[in-house]
């Protein structure tokens, strides 16, 4: 409990620091940075640990950031080449003159910052000529201060994927805002993503995330506002903007918390699996409330009992009843929450067209071409569907992910009811999660490939949660709801 309290206090302190810095007109002032860094040094949770009720300073940089420049190398063959989080302490490492360890040169794509004219271009070369940059723990942020205050990030070499997280400051802008990112290639916009956010956008976290997936850049987006024809699947630079709901410049800041980029991924990073829905927990809570409906099982497809000559009793197998109206309302809320113009119904081309799947499909948008269920499955995604269940397999940066949804159930005789609870943990071959939503049971699991999975991200429940948070619920067509 003490540790949790400390964490909250630290987060609050960091938020205050970030907000205060965002109000200064010239953002990067060496003196202010030094002062801010000293303060951050005292409250950054990564620099302390609680032992016997006392704060003990630790030296995480020695482990997490081998170089004082703030660049963290990727050693797990992950797809992200680097990332920038704009936190103040890390920005010191981004300033010209700071060098990263020579062994890290070439492992990151690198990024050069550019700003509009009304923002002092103090941060102009990160990296260049061997300097590269990236950040560490997400904290602080960079402020887009008005409609002209675009932020441009040039990459040292073209990248396939960019993901950026931002948090509007509602204390200064109580109105809805539009947050936008453009991927540019050869002087043209290759892909654009935007999302309208408002104070009603509540997921427990006041931030949104946008991702440019260059591998999907040549397809028309059904969920986002694409502009013009795309000519490339790689981006030379991106431009980040913010508007109000009417398209006029805004005066309030949007904090950019985190940006990652990749140029060589063959697998879809979690952050590129689609927007966060933030809705799974809500759906679980509602499922727990609807427990009587969940227990109202449908057909018995195999009765319980002892067969002739069998030593043990055979478990009863049932087809669970699904609360379609409640599931559909939850799917609607998901779309409203993230501002996604998504259909509610997905009729996927399975391997057996005659078996029309009746289970609500839980799937990240990246499983579809251009995040559009009507456009079919994306490359590398496999689906096995039958009338009562489906398995969807998609490659991710942490190994193949398997999402199973089924309404077939063999109830356990002694198991306690945990309907509406998320069971998530480390598994024999990777992290896995299990839960029931509106009567259908689901599992989401990762398949590790490493030789020792104990400390691998693929067996980290927190990593799996980033995937769970990107699952959208799609309903089967009316005629298939049985």
């Amino acid at each position, binding site marked *: 409990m003490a540790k949790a309290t400390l964490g909250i206090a630290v987060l609050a302190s960091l938020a205050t620091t970030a907000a205060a810095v965002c109000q200064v007109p010239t953002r990067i002032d060496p003196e202010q940075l030094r002062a801010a860094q000293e303060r951050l040094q005292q409250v950054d949770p990564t620099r302390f640990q609680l032992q016997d009720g006392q704060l003990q300073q630790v030296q995480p940089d020695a482990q997490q950031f081998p170089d004082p420049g703030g660049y963290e190398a990727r050693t797990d063959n992950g797809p992200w080449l680097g990332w920038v989080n704009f936190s103040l302490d890390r920005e010191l490492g981004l300033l010209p003159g700071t060098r990263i360890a020579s062994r890290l040169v070439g492992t990151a794509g690198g990024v050069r910052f550019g700003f509009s004219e009304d923002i002092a271009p103090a941060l102009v070369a990160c990296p260049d000529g061997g300097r590269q940059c990236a950040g560490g723990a997400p904290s602080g942020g960079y402020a887009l201060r008005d409609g002209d205050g675009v932020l441009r990030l040039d990459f040292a070499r073209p990248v396939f994927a960019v993901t950026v997280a931002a948090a509007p400051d509602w204390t200064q802008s109580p109105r809805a805002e539009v947050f936008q990112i453009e991927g540019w290639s050869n002087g043209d916009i290759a892909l654009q993503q935007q999302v309208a956010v408002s104070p009603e956008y509540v997921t427990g976290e006041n931030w949104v995330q946008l991702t440019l997936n260059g591998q999907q850049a040549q397809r028309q987006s059904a969920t986002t506002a694409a502009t013009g024809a795309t000519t490339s699947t790689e981006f030379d630079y991106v431009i980040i903007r913010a508007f109000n709901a009417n398209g006029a410049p805004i005066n309030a800041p949007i904090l950019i918390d985190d940006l990652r980029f990749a140029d060589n991924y063959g697998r879809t990073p979690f952050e590129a699996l689609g927007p966060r829905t933030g809705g799974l927990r809500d759906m679980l809570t509602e499922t727990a409330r609807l427990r009587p409906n*969940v*227990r109202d*099982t449908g057909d018995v497809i*195999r009765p*319980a009992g002892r067969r002739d*000559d*069998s*030593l*043990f*009793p*055979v*478990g009863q197998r049932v087809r*669970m009843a699904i609360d379609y109206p409640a599931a559909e309302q939850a799917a609607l809320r998901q779309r409203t929450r993230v501002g996604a113009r998504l259909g509610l119904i997905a009729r996927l081309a399975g391997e057996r067209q005659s078996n029309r799947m009746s289970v609500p499909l839980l799937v990240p948008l990246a499983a579809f071409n251009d995040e559009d269920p009507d456009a079919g499955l994306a490359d*590398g995604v*496999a689906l*096995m569907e039958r009338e009562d*269940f489906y*398995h969807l*397999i998609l*490659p991710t940066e942490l*190994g*193949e992910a*398997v999402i*199973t*949804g*089924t*309404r*077939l*159930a*063999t*109830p356990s*005789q*002694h*198991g306690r*009811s*945990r*309907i509406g*609870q998320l*069971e*998530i*943990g*480390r598994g*024999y*071959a*990777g992290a*896995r999660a*299990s*839960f*029931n939503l509106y009567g259908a*049971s*689901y*599992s989401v699991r990762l*398949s*590790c*490939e*490493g*030789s*020792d999975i*104990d400390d691998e991200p693929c067996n980290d*429940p927190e990593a799996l949660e980033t995937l769970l948070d990107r699952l959208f619920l799609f309903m089967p067509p009316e005629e298939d709801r049985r």
Partner: protein
Amino acid sequence: MNLPARLLVAMPSATALSMLALYGADMAGFGADAPPSPPPVEEADPVEPDTPEEPEAEDAEPDAEAEAEVEDAEPEAPPPPPEPAPLDFDHDAPGELIAETAHIQVSEGVTDETIIAPDMRFPFLTGPAYANSQLFKPLWSWEFYPSSGTIDGVQYPRPQGWEYSQENYSYPWIDNFCEIRTHDNSRCGAGIGHEGQDIRPGACWHNQVAVAAASGQLRTLSNFSVDLFGDDGMVYRYFHLDRPLLVDLEPGEWVEVEAGDPIGFVSNVNRSGTPIVRDTSIHLHFEIWEGDLNGHDPRAPYSSLVEAYRWLGAEDPANHQPFEDVGDCSYPDGGLTPTRAQVIAALDAAEAAEEDSE
């Protein structure tokens, strides 16, 4: 490279032929290092077939009427063969783990005897098979790994010895779902525990073929796991199968299989995709995933496996008797026990050398 000939007995004919073509006609043993043979089954004394008595010819003249009656009469159907009796073998009760291996505060696994998959085909081509523990049976010496039996600071009992210890390859079967592991498993009393059942082959050798437990779609998901997405809606997971598999299965592809189709050799391949000495034994880690009202996760497979094994043994009980000698996989030189792929490579090299000499 070869397979014990007895393995072919229960194999679908087309599969057996294809495997014969793949491994050659000599499938009676592994050459000089052949796996042990099962104890010879005493052959019954040959019995002279009953010779029907010749009817006495009472009348030399053919009786046309009687002949017509004979033609019109339905031939009497032979009596149906007696139903094979299920194999009677020694096995401990579901949830009864090796003492003190569940958890420091929990002594049982899942005692629910319910058969989750009553129609499952036993995942080995034939017997014998020994469901027990690969971690808490003799595997290696504490002399080499004095701390490897410690989990969460608690040292669990592990008998000294080697993988080829006879007790590893004998009945009774022992459940090891919920055996202590660091994996989360909400079905175990401690909240952590083994998610499947370890099954050893009949001998300490890569001679056992894992087969599809149900009809469905097969897919590899990592170096050491194969998932069978059953048409019955269950997921059967196979771990530690030797590479390459017996099915032509590329990563990212589906292969449709029928229940009983060979998938691969039971091995000690671990997560790295290579066999690892003193890390894991030659065994199959087998899981069954099925839904319930709470979610979809691994279920205790022991009861289902016992039942499937009983009926597999009904076909040929002799194939389920323990070997007199379980072989030697003691890795005397510290090297790896050869896998099927390595043996194939060696044979190919020998064959090539022979052709060159000719």
